[in-house]
């Protein structure tokens, strides 16, 4: 059985600092005993509010932050070893590429650090620039690039050595909708080719569209983990009706998870089949018109908000 692309065991990071002038020790537990396994070839989304520990977790995978305890492995190798990072491509959030580079020069530098020999670099650089839509920009200093172009160049940098694991921190940040779609197409192609992708993004719709599995972090721990399809499917029914007497409306509202009214129509969101069947019976008995009944799936955003706000259904 092949080793997972990412495997962490009780990975923990506690940032310690001393308060001035009291000298009191302050501790922030950024990541708390996080155990995650991402099989090779999977597309995995890492979600969480600001300060949830996503970036610290990624940095521990890449050894720019040292874990306080626990361990991380990349394709079965200890993540602290430089060699374990050879099959990894990384696009950090808020990257700052040196502006003295041209696009091609920058790709050449990072490809060299990944150990790519010169002939291969010469072949890959124009190919990748074209792939991310930066044809003709290779010899231009990156100080002249727009934010979206820098993001595309960053993606090219992460792909230059044909990584088996791609870790992307907000890859669509600053990219226009067309560019975003383009990036998504590239990622889908990589997925088809068996590349493991760890996507850390605030754009939940993007994660929902692309990732097969997600983990939602809250205060450094996994609050929810599962397949996107399972998390967002079969979550309830929306029943819309008119001419509902007030007492019945109040009764139905007590069983519904949400109620909204518009143009004389009232919509009830029921969490399950028994509740909606009972509501249909009540409405028909009262002679009300049923306008529509549709099964609803919750979006990843719903799941995210419910998880972060502590809805017991998801915690």
């Amino acid at each position, binding site marked *: 059985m092949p080793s997972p692309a990412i495997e962490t065991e009780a990975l923990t990071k506690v940032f310690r600092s001393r308060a001035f002038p009291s000298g009191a020790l302050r501790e922030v537990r950024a990541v708390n005993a996080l155990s995650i396994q991402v099989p090779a070839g999977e597309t995995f989304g890492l979600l969480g509010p600001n300060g949830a520990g996503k970036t610290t977790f990624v940095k521990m995978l890449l050894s720019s*932050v*040292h874990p306080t305890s626990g361990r991380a492995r990349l394709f079965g190798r200890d993540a602290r070893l430089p*060699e374990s990072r050879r099959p990894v491509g*990384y696009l950090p959030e808020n*990257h*700052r590429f*040196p502006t003295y580079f041209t696009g091609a020069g920058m790709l050449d530098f*990072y490809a060299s650090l*990944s150990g790519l020999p010169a002939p291969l670099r010469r072949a890959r650089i124009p190919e990748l620039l074209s792939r991310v839509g930066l044809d003709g920009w290779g010899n231009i200093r990156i100080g002249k690039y727009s934010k979206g172009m820098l993001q595309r160049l960053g993606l090219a940098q992460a792909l230059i050595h044909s990584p088996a694991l791609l870790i992307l921190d907000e890859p669509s940040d600053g990219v226009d909708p067309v560019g975003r779609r383009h990036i998504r197409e590239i990622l889908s192609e990589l997925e088809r080719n068996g590349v493991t992708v760890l996507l850390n993004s605030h754009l939940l719709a993007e994660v929902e569209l692309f990732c097969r599995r997600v983990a939602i972090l809250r205060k450094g721990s996994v609050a929810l983990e599962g397949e996107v399809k399972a998390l967002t499917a079969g979550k309830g029914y929306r029943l819309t009706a008119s001419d509902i007497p007030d007492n019945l409306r109040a009764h139905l509202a007590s069983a519904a998870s949400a109620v909204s009214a518009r143009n004389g129509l009232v919509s009830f969101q029921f969490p399950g089949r028994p509740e909606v069947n009972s509501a249909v019976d009540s409405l028909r008995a009262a002679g009300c018109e049923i306008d529509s009944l549709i099964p609803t799936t919750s979006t990843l955003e719903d799941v995210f908000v419910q998880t972060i706000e502590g809805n017991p259904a998801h915690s």
Partner: protein
Amino acid sequence: MNPTATAALLRDTFREAMARKIFWGLFGLSTLLILFFLFVLKIDIVEGATATISLFGKTGGTADVDRLVRGVYGFVAVFLYTWGMFLAVFASAGLTPAILEPGRIELLLSKPVGRTHILLGRYAGNVLVVTANTVFLVLGVWIIFGLKTHLWPPGFLLTIPITIFVFAVLLAVVVLVGVLWESTALSVMIPVALMILSPILAQERIMMKLLSSEWSRRLWRALYFALPKIFDLGTSTLNAIRDRSYSFFDPLWTSALFGAVMLAAALAVFLKRDY
């Protein structure tokens, strides 16, 4: 160590030094000095031993050729030791904090290159930038004067390794300050303070008479032993140029020890730190 990565780190430091006009600034200054000796200062050898010197076409009289050449070499060596060294430290101070900037260091560390490799790569690249300029200036002046006077005293060439050595020692301090505080200003101030302190600490005989207590004398000796002996190395180089007796051994190994400790401390901090 991956040689492709090493070459990339060295090239990157050169590229950044050029982009920051560090390389070109030092190169321009060296070129100006060379051009000065090449075109402005004219030497006509008279009967092999004496020479008439003219500056901007104005003749300044005759002088002993050997003394003249050694005098000029001494001037270039002192220039390199004082202004050259200060400019090199000043220009290099930002190169270490630059790679530690958020958004840049994470990407560097995500590559299959160890932290020691990254820091030493930048350090070596920085030393190479100054080496290129020192070799260009010293060899340029030596060749020009050799061609003009037919004298090729080898002592002047010692300026190359000694200048590079002293810079490498000071650069270790720059790197340590850079990784500790990520401050360009402090990275300049501390090595410059060492440069200023060195000639003062070297006045051991005078200071032993002036200092009244034994503990202050001990402190003085300890500081003199521990800190880099920039002044002593400079004096020995000048003596070598003037064909006088000189000894590099003690100042060289104690300064090397200081530089090695600074570099090891910088590596220890860099290896431990979270970015």
